[in-house]
């Protein structure tokens, strides 16, 4: 699939934003973080910025962005619609929670409950986003169980990495907990990604050029003449190809930058002099962001659409 920047940004940024939102709510509600106003202002600012800029970016992918509002109507069947509705719904509790935190300086009790509702909705929204992809049978690389798990865990993971950075900057909250949490999430994220990549290679093809054309009884099928001389929409959108070797290299890089290095850096925070932990946490965050951008780029670029079976691929 064509790795469109707007969609890569949308999925990573909103995932991170909702992830951050979740940790703010959970840690705030459970009293691990005091309702520090400046911290709150910045943290919620970042979370909302990521969520909103992600949503705006996603409309960059639309042919008619001015009609984007129409995307809310089909929540009964469409995950994209559900995602939109959920995103809007989520703004209510998270917004109130942010206000109570920043304005009233309260983040526990009733505020905490509202925050937790926001956290649940945030997770549901990430899930809905993931289901936009996971529900597409025509793209086997997406329509598998790892997609949603991946989106959820990576969202929470980036959220916690940001949280860690914020806590380091502001020196608020229980940094030991967030260090542990981030480390665990990074490990889990890396593990899930590995599983995901393994699943892409394994399991055999779901559709083949033979099943696409129904000509399998006559032998192995391959295209010899394309219906058109130049690339059409399908080829531009779904015919994206990256070399296997290139993909392998990028996967390794994504793994190292997105998970291993940050994990090492975060782990180092626990043992190394606290003065360095700020730098380490920010470095870890930067590394996560770069790694995740690559991961998400690969998520699109590596995904093969069954329509390519009509255009020369033999199996997807």
């Amino acid at each position, binding site marked *: 699939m064509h790795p469109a920047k707007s969609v890569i940004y949308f999925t990573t940024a909103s995932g991170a934003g909702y992830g951050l939102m979740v940790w703010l709510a959970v840690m705030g509600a459970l009293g691990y973080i005091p309702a520090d106003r400046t911290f709150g202002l910045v943290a919620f600012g970042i979370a909302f910025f990521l969520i909103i800029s992600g949503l705006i970016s996603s409309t960059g992918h639309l042919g008619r962005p001015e009609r984007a509002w129409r995307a809310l109507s089909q929540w*009964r069947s469409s995950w994209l619609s559900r995602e939109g509705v959920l995103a809007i719904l989520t703004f209510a509790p998270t917004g109130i929670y942010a206000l109570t935190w920043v304005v009233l300086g309260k983040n526990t009790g009733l505020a905490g409950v509202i925050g937790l509702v926001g956290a649940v909705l945030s997770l549901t929204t990430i899930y809905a986003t993931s289901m936009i992809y996971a529900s597409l049978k025509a793209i086997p690389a997406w329509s598998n169980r790892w997609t949603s798990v991946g989106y959820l865990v990576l969202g929470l993971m980036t959220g916690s990495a940001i949280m860690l950075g914020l806590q380091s900057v502001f020196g608020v909250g229980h940094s030991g907990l967030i260090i542990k949490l981030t480390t665990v999430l990074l490990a889990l994220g890396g593990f899930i990604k590995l599983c995901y990549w393994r699943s892409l290679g394994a399991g055999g093809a779901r559709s083949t050029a033979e099943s696409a054309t129904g000509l399998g009884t006559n032998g192995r099928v391959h295209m010899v*003449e394309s219906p058109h001389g*130049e690339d059409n929409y399908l080829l531009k959108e779904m015919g994206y190809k990256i070399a296997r070797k290139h993909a392998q290299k990028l996967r390794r890089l994504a793994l190292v930058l997105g998970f291993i290095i940050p994990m090492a850096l975060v782990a180092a925070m626990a043992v190394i002099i606290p003065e360095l932990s700020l730098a380490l946490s920010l470095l870890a965050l930067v590394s996560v962001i770069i790694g995740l951008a690559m991961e998400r780029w690969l998520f699109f670029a590596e995904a093969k659409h069954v329509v390519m079976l009509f255009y020369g691929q033999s199996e997807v």
Partner: protein
Amino acid sequence: MTCLPQNASRVKLGLVIDLDICVGCHACAVNCKEWNTSGKLAPLTDIDPYGAKPDGVWFNRVHTFEAVDEAAGTSRTVHFPRSCLHCEDAPCVTVCPTGASYKRDDDGIVLINTDICIGCKLCSWACPYGAREYDEDEGVMKKCTLCVDKIYNENLPPESRVPACVSTCPTGARSFGDLGDPDSDVSKLVEARGGYALMPEQGTAPVNRYLPPRPKKVGDGMAPRMLEHHDDSADGAGLLARWVDKVLSV
């Protein structure tokens, strides 16, 4: 409603394409473009029409495949038109966030309301058959309409009330009708020829059917493998002698 019709009528309009006689002439593809460029989803925009990368909206595209059976040492060439299959479980409909993509209750035709389409392209990702065509210029999705504005059109003479691709196909490889009615001509044709659906594993339940290319008739016992010679003398001397005596009355 982008949910699929619940109380759908049993009418399932669709196409039947005979791969045994399609010669790959592209007539169906071009005539489709010609009708539809002023039809319901007008225009079928062309980008860079006289330039380096001409690309436009087409509802029908004709591929050519080879099927090679290395073990048997055989291969064959098959021309393969591809357009919307008007699936019963059309994922392009259910994924659409706006309701622009829908399946008609009356006849099962899958259509797009381009007045409300936001061009999110999700339906094109959902369609396994590449049947959806994005109009870059208008920013909306388009696709085969099964010539909904032709098949019922009272302003046309009856013989023109068929999809453009069907009425134009020079070999008669394309048929059109109600595949929901087991007694319709097309259903009978499908039945008789073992018509099949593409990629059933995708769970889309296409309405359109393809008729498989028939087995080749290479020496299938239609005649002895060689003729009995009446004379095998060099240069047929004996035969010529026989023919000298042949009396023909004209």
